[in-house]
């Protein structure tokens, strides 16, 4: 089995498996974000649960970090190998004649998402880790109230940050537009090439980024009122 994951197909399968995991995570992340629009109190409670539950913090979180890092590292390794596989490039190449822009530029949409994740970690994840693991404050409280909703609002005051988030989500949409169905093909399923899953894939790659964009814009506009 270890030989399998060293083969070109095994690596492709491992990219697909990590992609499925990350796509499920995105769905879960968006669901919690949407709560912040409809009910700040519920958002606070769910955020506190996710931030302090031992199973989430010490089992799911490390798996998620591993999944993210793995998907990026393996993506870069495969890209380098693929570039080496063509040592002289074409003088004229008409890629648009036979494939989508999204499918040919997964590495660039991926790099844009990586840049976003670094910004997102600086914005939310590192301060969380600092509060809980360095300062040892697991109460989730600030001035006697849950701090999560307030922190979220504060982050979306700056229009430059909101613009950066929106651009990153557009790249996420482009990445998912190819990635969703591609993952099925890599797993050896023809389903990704059938109409049903292609429609679901299109819907997923539009709804997920659009959801994140709406939440970011909502808090930006709401805070200014």
């Amino acid at each position, binding site marked *: 089995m270890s030989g399998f994951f060293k083969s070109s197909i095994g690596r492709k399968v491992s990219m697909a498996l990590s992609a499925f995991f990350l796509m499920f995570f995105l769905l879960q992340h968006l669901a919690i974000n949407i709560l912040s629009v409809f009910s700040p109190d519920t958002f606070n409670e769910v955020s506190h649960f996710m931030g302090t539950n031992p199973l989430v913090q010490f089992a799911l979180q490390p798996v998620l970090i591993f999944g993210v890092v793995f998907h990026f590292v393996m993506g870069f390794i495969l890209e380098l190998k693929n570039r080496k*596989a063509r040592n*002289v490039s074409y003088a004229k190449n*008409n890629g648009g004649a036979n494939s989508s822009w999204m499918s040919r530029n*997964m590495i660039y949409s991926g790099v844009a998402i990586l840049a976003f994740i670094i910004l997102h970690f600086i914005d939310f994840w590192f301060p969380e880790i600092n509060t809980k693991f360095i300062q040892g404050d697991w109460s989730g409280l600030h001035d006697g109230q849950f701090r999560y909703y307030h922190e979220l609002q504060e982050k979306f005051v700056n229009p430059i940050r909101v613009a950066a988030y929106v651009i990153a989500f557009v790249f996420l949409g482009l990445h998912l537009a190819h990635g969703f169905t591609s993952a099925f093909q890599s797993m050896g399923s023809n389903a990704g090439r059938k109409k049903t899953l292609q429609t679901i894939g299109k819907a997923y790659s539009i709804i997920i980024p659009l959801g994140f964009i709406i939440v970011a814009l909502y808090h930006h506009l709401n805070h200014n009122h």
Partner: protein
Amino acid sequence: MNLTLKIWRQKDASSKGQMVDYKVTEISEHMSFLEMMDVLNEQLVNSGEEPVAFDHDCREGICGMCSMYINGEAHGPDRGVTTCQLHMRMFKDGDTITIEPFRAAAFPVLKDLVVDRSSFDRIQHAGGYISVNTSGNTQDANSIPISKHAADEAMDAATCIGCGACVATCKNSSAMLFVGAKVSQYALLPQGQVEAADRVRNMVAQMDLEGFGNCTNTGACEVECPKGISLDNIARMNRELMKASI
């Protein structure tokens, strides 16, 4: 038709090549692309220049010998045809046509537009066969029941002529459409079952060893394949390797 051709010229495998411009005149739109190349070569020979080397054999679209990357596409802009079946009516008078060899580290250029595709042969040798006792007691293949659907799919996969357009087209120079077709044509039939696990393992291992890239499911190979080999064959190969590895 009068055309300007930008053609990759390379003296031999170790030389550095370059694009060179040529003019050809009075090309009939009914000519095949290779016939147009013949006209150019006659012109070059008459003027004492070295003719452009290019691969060709049957000129009927079935041998898989011709190649060429024409205006940024393997076998040119037409669909479902090899370069020998590409007609000059696909181009317009006054056009500039860029002609390059198939590019991949696993397909080194030997001279001008001729590339070495023996890496495909080595992949075939690694497992693209079935072992049949031919000592006189071979069972009649027609006595083995095979569903029409499986037979059709196997035949579709077997129409691959191994030209390498999939590799040339793929942005990753991946050979997975070729190997997928070769694995599938046996995996779909009862005769292929006995050696199925070893076949896919060995062919994929050889493919990786030859330095082909990794498939990222762009689907470009399927579009450019002169035989219309489907991406379903790559999915099947992935399944076969998973099955063989568990």
